[in-house]
Each structure stands twice: as C-alpha cells, then as structure tokens.
C-alpha cells in the first residue's frame, strides 16, 4: 500500500478514535431468526490464547505444569498428522503462556516437521523460523501471533491443495487440546465464571457439522475422526444450552477426562 495512503488512513483513524459513529444508529435489537441461513457465516475458530488470557485475568494458572513432556508421534495417517499438528500448535499457545522459550522453539520445529508430512511445509517455513527468533528474544506477543499465523497458513495451504477436510482436522485438534488445558485449569480452582468459558455451543456445532460432512471418504471413516465425532456429541450437552447456564464442576471434570484421553489417542496413534 503506498505510503501516502497509509498516512491518510492513519490520520483518518486518529480522527475516528475521537469521533463516535453517529451516521447510522444501529437498532438496539434484531430478530436473528429473520436472517436467511446463507446470510449467516460460520464461526471463526478462536485460538487458544483468546480463552487463556481470560484465565490469566481470573487467576494465576501454572502454565508450565500444563505443558506436555511429549508432543506425540506421527504416523503415515494424514488424519492423525493433521489432528496432531492442531494439538502441537495449541501447545505453542500454552508454551507462550508459560513463557518457555525452549519449549516454544521445540514446538516451532515440530510444526515444521508435521507440515512437511502433509506437504504444506513451505507455508510455515518462515513462521517456524520467526517463532524461534522471537522466542529467543522473549517477544511473547509476537510468538503468539506467529502461532496464529502458522495455524492460518497451514490451513490456507491445505485449502489451496483442495484439502479442506484436512484443514478442518487441524482446527479440531487444536480446539481439543485447548479445551483439555482449559478444563485442567478450571477444575483446579473451579468458579462458575471460569467454567462459563466452556460455553461454546456454536463451535461444537460447527465442528460436528464439518466432521459429519467430510468429502474425503477415507478421512470420514477414519477411527480417530469417528472418535472425535463421539467426543463432540458427548461434550455438547455438558456445556450449557443457554447463555448464563451454570456449568457444574462435574461437567468440567468429565470434559477434561474426555479431551485428555482423545489428545492421548491422537498423540499415540503412531506408536
């Protein structure tokens, strides 16, 4: 973008920062049911740090204790590699919270290895290098952004190769590992406020829909994928139907156990 345009934009934004939008006062309420289905886009899957930073505000989690010793082993099964890649990127966000440079660098290298196994190495080569560089100088905000970027780039590369199904598995793997960590922390110091972070019905519904509609028959019939379908079906009733529903401690423990076991299954598939 030309510098002059940047200057104009910055000036505009500075002006906007002090001038609320009065031109179109939005309605205080809308009837969402009146929106045709095609006018409602799918949810963007949040990265683990979006929920982790709330946990930081609610308490002082011991992030280091949440890190796994082993990042798991890969097999020749593309579904397993994609799911594992998702869990490893999610681990990156945990390592950032733990401010563990060595772990972050290890994870950055592992992201590259796993990406290579499913032919999207090129997409994350620069990200991997950048993760290492920024971890060395402990620029945690930048590292977090690189992991978000790596997740995005890997999925984009898969979609470019016509492998949208595999891209979804990366997202699902990351969400499961993120949920395992989230529930691990919540159950150690349960409050209704922290448990409310599990209220993610749109995401569970989104993943369920995606896994139910995988176009690749081999992936659709994969044992791990089937296991995750069952996991999502089991989690759905435990996270509250309506906003503000209290998610009891027992539910947190159950979700933790299910996600922990699933992450272990993903990680050991190659064993």
């Amino acid at each position, binding site marked *: *973008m030309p510098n002059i345009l*940047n200057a*104009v*934009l910055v000036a*505009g*934004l*500075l*002006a*906007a*920062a002090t*001038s*609320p*939008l009065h*031109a*179109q006062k*939005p*309605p*205080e*309420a*809308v009837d*969402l049911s009146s*929106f045709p289905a*095609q*006018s*409602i*886009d799918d*949810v*963007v*899957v*949040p*990265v683990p*740090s*979006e929920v982790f*930073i*709330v946990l930081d*505000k*609610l308490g002082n989690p011991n992030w280091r204790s949440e890190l796994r010793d082993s990042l798991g082993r890969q097999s020749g099964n593309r579904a397993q590699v994609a799911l594992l890649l998702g869990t490893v990127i999610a681990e990156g966000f945990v390592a950032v919270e733990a401010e563990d440079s060595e772990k972050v660098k290890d994870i950055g290298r592992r992201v590259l290895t796993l990406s290579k196994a499913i032919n999207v190495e090129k997409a994350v080569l620069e990200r991997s290098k950048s993760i290492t560089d920024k971890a060395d100088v402990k620029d945690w*905000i930048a590292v*977090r*952004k690189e992991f*978000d*970027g790596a*997740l*995005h*780039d890997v*999925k*984009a590369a898969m*979609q*470019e190769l016509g492998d949208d199904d595999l*891209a979804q598995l990366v997202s699902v793997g990351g969400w499961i590992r993120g949920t395992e960590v989230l529930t691990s922390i919540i159950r150690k110091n349960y409050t209704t*406020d922290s448990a*409310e*972070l*599990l*209220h*993610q019905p*749109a*995401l569970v519904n989104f993943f369920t829909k995606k896994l139910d509609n995988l176009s690749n028959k081999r992936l659709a019939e994969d044992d791990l994928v089937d296991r995750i379908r069952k996991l999502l079906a089991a989690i759905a009733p435990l996270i509250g139907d309506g*906003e*503000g529903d209290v998610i009891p401690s027992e539910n947190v423990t159950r979700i933790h156990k299910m996600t922990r076991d699933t992450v272990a299954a993903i990680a050991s598939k190659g064993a």
Partner: protein
Amino acid sequence: MKKTLSFLLALLIAASAWGYVDDAISFAYEAASPYVKKGFSVREDAWGGDLGVKDQQAVQAQLFKGNEYWFCLGTDVKGAVLSVNIYDSKGTLINVETTRAGRLSAVRVEPPRTGTYYAIVTVHKSPEERTGWALVYAYK
C-alpha cells in the same frame, strides 16, 4: 460466499479479477492497526465477501467474557458506507464504542457472557452494485 481469509486468498489465486477482496482485507487490517498499539492481538483469520446496497451479512463469533474485542471492517469501494454491529444470541446490541473513517469502521465490545455473538455487516450506501467487505477482529 466464503468465510475465511484462507478461502478468500484461494479465490484470489483462482480469479485475480476479484481484486476487491484483497483491498477490503487490507483496509480491515488497517482499521485494526491502532488497537495493536493498545495491546490487542489481531487474528489472522477473517470473514469477507460482497454485498448489495442495503444487504446484510451476519457472521458468528465465539466470544469470551473477560476479553475486549475490536471488530474492524474494511471495504474496497470508495464512497461506500458500511457498518458492523455486534449482537448477542438473543439479538440484543452489545456495542460499547464505534468508530468510522472513510472505508474503515470498527466496533468495540466487552461480552457480558461467554457464548455466540453475531457481527452484522450492513452496506448502507455504495456507488457500486456489489461492495466488497472484509472483517477482522482483535482481542485482549
């Protein structure tokens, strides 16, 4: 209509004539840039597409109580007026602060609950029949 920046980028490769998408995303990221200096992290993923005048698109977002969010909207069409407003799952407006400057507009929210929210993009006026838009969000 496709939902993610990833797909939009794929579309760009397939059909370079759809340059508006690229421009709209650039403007959306420009709209988000002031908030980076305030400690917000801007997501790499985005939503986008094109709409006719008076058309609306709702996009779902999973938001967490305790975070602050800026939703930042950009368009490639000079002279177009677009807005983005955030509603909870019952359809109640939760905007805290809104700004607009040329092709950029943004809204800040502090979700009262963890759950599903809807960002509703509206094209109020435009010199073009179809107006490209892109939406990104930042959180802290």
